[in-house]
């Protein structure tokens, strides 16, 4: 097992347990500040835009989207893959950093998991709407039916995707909820309002903090964590198989599953960084999410960026080296130069080049640059999906079929709507749930201080 020898402190201020509870529980016990209402208003407006787009999609059909016969996958699948990628951060944070014994993750994993839950919900909306008749979505569940019984095509990656996404959503919610049961009990015990006490009490499920209970709870968490680790790898690999199993040039490559997986972790960590920088600013949690935490995330991003960058290079190299002219055409004449070259180079700049600035301590320490680069990575990862999906489809084997793609207002509305959903979810989360795992942080809050005393 890998052990990390961490020097220094993980929670600043040598806080007592009571102080840790007080500091983290504060946002759930006080009235939200003005910025919270402002952000909620923004989220509501975005949700309204989404509702308008949803109405148009339902009332007039998928014809209101920018997709056409040639480019049959457009913003819907781009946004789906993008949100799923962001949804990988939570589980990656909890599980992989747990496996590597990285205790610093304790302060961030609750927020990252919340992000996962809301991002996966946003992602799941797109394929659901893309079905055209979402009210028949239950057809994709294998159950004995009166249509034969006609079962699903179990050989199809699209069916694996349905399974993977729904399993992932369920697992993320379970991990997130079970992780917060002791903290809900903490809030329950602290609250003086009877109504609040009852609500938190229901969700805390009679948690008493007994060692016997903790023992089983830890065992359960280990099982869930151990299961989520292979799951998180499989989810984005299966999303990649949606593309890789087809015969479209630019999709039909074996590098896709690992490349998509790293891309997902990369974009997820970038989103965690963006959100943590903002939350740190407004919620006064600097003692728990220190500059060091942000620096660690930056290092992960830098490492991810190296893998992503080499994947880009490898794709282009194989396109040339394989001698398949369609592949070479897509990579060299459609993406690197040609109609989609601006998008391609934005992707390379944001994902492969910008995070390399994190080699320098100055950039890792500067909140401004951390924020800017994390946003750039989010944009870059969106463009990556755009380049993969649209460039391959719009110019494939038959030039007679070539077509351009332009998103419509409805496409944009839906995307904005999911932002609203995500933001609203996150805002409700920071309002009602302790955003840092109080019980876990208490276990590490004395680290670094004890040694000094001894």
């Amino acid at each position, binding site marked *: 097992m890998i052990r990390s020898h961490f020097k220094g402190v993980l929670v600043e201020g040598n806080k*007592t*347990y*009571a102080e840790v*509870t007080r500091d983290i529980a504060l946002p759930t016990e006080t009235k939200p500040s003005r910025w919270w209402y402002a952000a909620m208003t923004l989220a509501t407006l975005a949700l309204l835009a989404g509702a308008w787009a949803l109405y148009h999609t339902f009332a007039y059909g998928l014809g209101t989207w920018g997709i056409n016969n040639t480019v049959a996958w457009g913003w819907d699948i781009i946004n789906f893959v993008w949100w799923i990628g962001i949804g990988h951060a939570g589980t990656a944070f909890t599980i992989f950093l747990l496996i590597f014994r990285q205790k610093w993750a304790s302060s961030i994993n609750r927020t990252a998991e919340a992000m996962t839950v809301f991002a996966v919900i946003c992602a799941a909306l797109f394929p659901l709407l893309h079905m055209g008749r979402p009210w028949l979505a239950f057809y994709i569940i*294998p159950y004995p039916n009166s249509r*034969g*019984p*006609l*079962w699903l*095509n*179990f*050989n199809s990656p699209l069916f*694996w995707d349905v*399974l*993977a996404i729904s*399993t992932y959503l*369920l*697992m993320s919610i*379970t991990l997130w909820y*079970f992780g917060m049961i*002791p903290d809900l*009990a*903490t809030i*329950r*015990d*602290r609250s003086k309002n009877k109504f609040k006490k009852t609500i938190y*009490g*229901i*969700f*805390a*499920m*009679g*948690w*008493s*903090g*007994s*060692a*016997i*209970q*903790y*023992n*089983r*709870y*830890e*065992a*359960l968490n280990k*099982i*869930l964590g151990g*299961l*989520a680790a*292979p*799951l998180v790898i*499989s989810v984005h690999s*299966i999303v990649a198989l949606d593309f890789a199993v087809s015969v479209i040039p630019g999709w039909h490559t074996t590098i896709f599953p690992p490349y998509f997986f790293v891309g997902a972790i990369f974009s997820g960590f970038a989103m965690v960084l963006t959100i943590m920088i903002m939350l740190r600013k407004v919620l006064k949690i600097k003692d728990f999410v220190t500059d060091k935490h942000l620096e660690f995330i930056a290092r992960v991003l830098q490492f991810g960026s190296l893998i992503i960058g080499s994947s880009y290079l490898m794709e282009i190299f194989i396109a040339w080296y394989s001698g398949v002219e369609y592949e070479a055409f897509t990579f060299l004449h459609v993406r690197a130069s040609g109609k989609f070259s601006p998008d391609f180079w934005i992707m390379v700049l944001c994902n492969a080049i910008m995070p390399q600035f994190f080699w320098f301590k100055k950039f890792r320490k500067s909140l401004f640059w951390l924020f800017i680069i994390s946003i750039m990575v989010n944009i870059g990862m969106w463009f990556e999906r755009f380049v993969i999906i649209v460039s391959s489809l719009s110019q494939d084997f038959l030039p007679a079929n070539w077509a351009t793609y332009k998103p419509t207002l409805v496409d944009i509305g839906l995307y904005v709507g999911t932002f609203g959903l995500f933001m609203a979810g996150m805002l409700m989360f920071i309002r009602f749930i302790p955003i840092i795992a*109080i*019980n*876990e942080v*208490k*276990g590490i809050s004395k680290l670094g201080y*004890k040694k000094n005393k001894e």
Partner: protein
Amino acid sequence: MSKRSIIGVFDDESRVVSAIKKLKENKVKINDVYGPFASHDILSLVTKPSRLPHLAFIFGAGAAISTFLFVYYTSVINYPLSYGGKPTFSFPPMVVIIYLITILGTATLSVFAFLGRTATYPGKKAKMPGIGAMDDKFFVVIDQKNAVADVESLMRNNGAIEIRYEEF
């Protein structure tokens, strides 16, 4: 059922650990320890390793086998459909489905096993030895019948801030 208990209250993890060690040296049986977080030192002293992982393994094996049987039944026996002349029984794509359902099944069943074993359900009332167990206090609960040694002074000497004799 409440019993007459001795409850030692502590406010520091290392003190509880040393008190528990002393109590165990004197062969005092500890009923339970309540605290704000899962301290591995306390858990290893007070509890036996949970058997939940063994159960999870059985769940996983069951889920894997039943998923295989289900997919085999649907695609080979019940409604064999030819997709471009490919064989109806093809194991590689089944691996993905078995893999995912094994994870889903194991997780779900383990959660229910945990809830059942700990008798936890939404809205259950918490039975706690005192206020602060989920904040900053540790409570060592000992059955008065098991107090074979001078429990009170053992705990006091190891940093207990309060000793209570009550029904719990």
